């Protein structure tokens, strides 16, 4: 259950580090602009990842697969098709 939260937390922490901590290390004559750029990058990239994550978190539809695609998935992704499958409703 906790495992579910690991990826989002890790990614958020990474972008937070880039966006909040890294600007303090900016040096040089263009310090202000560099800080601005780093913060903007962190915010936009993190938000972009977040939207993708949220949109898939509670999907309202599932993928529609053709027979061919199902068989390829079975072969390549180890998603074996058995005579009877254990399905949780």
């Amino acid at each position, binding site marked *: 259950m906790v495992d579910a939260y690991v990826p989002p937390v890790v990614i958020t922490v990474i972008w937070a580090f880039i966006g909040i901590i890294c600007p303090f290390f900016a040096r040089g004559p263009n310090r202000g602009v560099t800080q601005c750029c780093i913060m903007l*990058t962190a915010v936009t990239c993190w938000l972009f990842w977040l939207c993708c994550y949220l949109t*898939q978190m*509670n999907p309202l539809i599932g*993928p529609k697969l053709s027979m061919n695609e199902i068989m390829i998935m079975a072969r390549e*992704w180890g998603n074996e098709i058995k005579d009877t499958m254990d*399905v949780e409703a």
Partner: protein
Amino acid sequence: MGSLFRSEEMALCQLFLQSEAAYACVSELGELGLVQFRDLNPDVNAFQRKFVNEVRRCDEMERKLRYLEKEIKKDGIPMLDTGESPEAPQPREMIDLEATFEKLENELREVNQNAEALKRNFLELTELKHILRKTQVFFDESVPMVYKSTSTYSSNKYRRYLQMADNQNEDEQAQLLGEEGVRANQPGQNLKLGFVAGVISREKLPAFERMLWRACRGNVFLRQAMIESPLEDPTNGDQVYKSVFIIFFQGDQLKTRVKKICEGFRATLYPCPEAPADRREMAMGVMTRIEDLNTVLGQTQDHRHRVLVAAAKNLKNWFVKVRKIKAIYHTLNLFNLDVTQKCLIAECWVPLLDIETIQLALRRGTERSGSSVPPILNRMQTFENPPTYNRTNKFTKAFQALIDAYGVASYREMNPAPYTIITFPFLFAVMFGDLGHGAIMALFGLWMIRKEKGLAAQKTDNEIWNIFFGGRYIIFLMGVFSMYTGLIYNDIFSKSLNIFGSHWHLSYNKSTVWNNNYLQLSPATSDYEGTPYPFGMDPIWQVASSNKIVFQNAYKMKISIIFGVLHMIFGVIMSWHNHTYFRNRLSLLYEFIPQLLFLVVLFFYLVLLMFIKWNRYAATNAFPMTEACAPSILITFIDMVLFKNSKAPGKDCNIYMFAGQSFFQTIFVLIALACIPVMLLGKPIKIMQARKLANEEVQPITGASDAEVGGMSNGGGSHGGGGEHHDEEEMSEIFIHQGIHTIEYVLGSVSHTASYLRLWALSLAHAQLAEVLWSMVLSLGLNKEGWLGGIFLTVVFAFWAVLTVGILVLMEGLSAFLHTLRLHWVEFQSKFYMGHGYAFQPFSFDTIIENGGAVTETE
């Protein structure tokens, strides 16, 4: 804050320079490139300015240098370009330079003239040589049958010649002249057959023949032979094909006629001796002379080459020096001479931060010129609008250029450029998102950046390359961000990466799979793991080609609106910074606050609805928060604005997503509606009131003013009221402007929000194009097997690669670039940017030399 956030503070300064030191000081300032001079003599003719003679001399020098350059280029000698810029020489050195150029030019002209004369001589001799050779043939052919004796060749010719010269044998003449000649010949008449030999260009030959035939009524006889090798025309060095001709005629009248015709056709006649021995002698003499001439010609060319090579070493240097001198004198022409005639006065715009540097430069200049009086830099107070100066480096220059292309920022307003450094490539990447194409773009940008110095040194005129090279940092950033968005969209050349394993699994058994063409996985069952793919789009969506677009459309449309609204709110907040800086309290209260409220309350609420819908509705939830009951956000929004009662999205579903939604929505719409009259009327009414107060203070006692005040407070300000300041706007103007501004903002907020949907549209188009290239091109190649398949695949891959780079990277890249630019210029900047400034154009040698010496005369 870094200086790029706002344009620099500028000061108008007066510069007092001693006349002797003026040249050196201006030279130092030109090297510095931080000062923009104003023209203090705008109504003075260019020919009446003080330093017009010096400028003329510089022009002369430049002309001489250009002549030298042309000659050097003609000979193909490489010109040394060290890339370093020599300092502007002192005025006294100018005379030395002038002398050097004069000498070089004269020498070169002399050499050229000599060479031309020699070449003309050479041409004549060559033509003569050809004539002597060819006429041999003519005379040989003329009498083939008559003398069959076995005497020597030469004696044959000799005798034939005697016959011709003496005109004794009528038979020979019969051979020469043909039938008509025989008839025409009276026996005993003294027929003296003369001839002229010459050379004419081949093209003119047929017309020449015709003219001869017509003019001389067929009484002349022309023989011609082509000269195989082309001859060089001395004036322009062209290779011309010519023919040798010889004309036989009798009588003096025909001779004059023939000569005139030859003159008209510009055929050169040569004295050709009749006797073969003479001809041979002449031929040998001609050969010797040709050889001598060749030697002399060679030596002349060598000399010329030496002169040019010596000049080529310094040519670029000289060009730079002369241009700098000219630029300095042009600038000195802008100055005013003060009353005492000893001092030059200049007015210039100077960035405040650089005043120290400029003082140092001036001091250096005065020291160099050896003058004792230090220059004075005085700051002046002015109400004029200063130029906008943004200090950029090679990285930020391109982004600043993007902004300036729309309009240079007004003085000291917020500069959108530093934010554009990131938002521009990011919005581009949202539309371009493909790991593979992004990598291509990033690598291209990286290559240009690594090879910067080398590529910049090759100054080409190719506009397209210059544009690409100028934007190398932009291209690199766009590529890098596209790689990131490509990872999130999980799209590399239209395929997906499966790094973490798909979070969707198949749960149908064999018989179901066999018996159905299509099966859909359900998020309510264990098909879906329950947690999303950790980074980016799940790879299964690329496999599910049937309804991938349905899912991705919903996703991409939402992110387009989310980023659009956030971008616009960012723009409105920038206007807050502008208002606080310019102490525009009215705008702050009656423009910024209602604008922000309007945007947030309607469109940020829309964004919040999206996040709420993502969070609350899931297939695995209990009723009524299942996926069947998820409402359409667009319909919700429309119903909200129209105050309509929404319908439930499904049977027995909740109408609203969260408790109190309808209440909040009504409140929000009312707030938004209330903002509109504030935007429309708030500021103008306040201005009107302020003016009334000002008028009352001006005319406190007169009763008429009360009536005026009463009249004004009643009227809608349609007459603007008397006693206004002469340069302020009329009240009606202010109301109209505010009305336009409000309508623009309110309607714009809706249309701009929808305009951001182009982020979705272009990314969909890009993904589909990539997929078409895969399924129609590359997969065909990969399907074949065996050796033949390998060859086929190579060809198909070449085709696919060309199309990928040409269509997807170049065309789509340009398209996305353009749309991103539009989003920045219109949707983002219309919220705060004025753009009414003019750019700071400092007097800088670097820019002048880069532009090839095109110096502006007036500022």
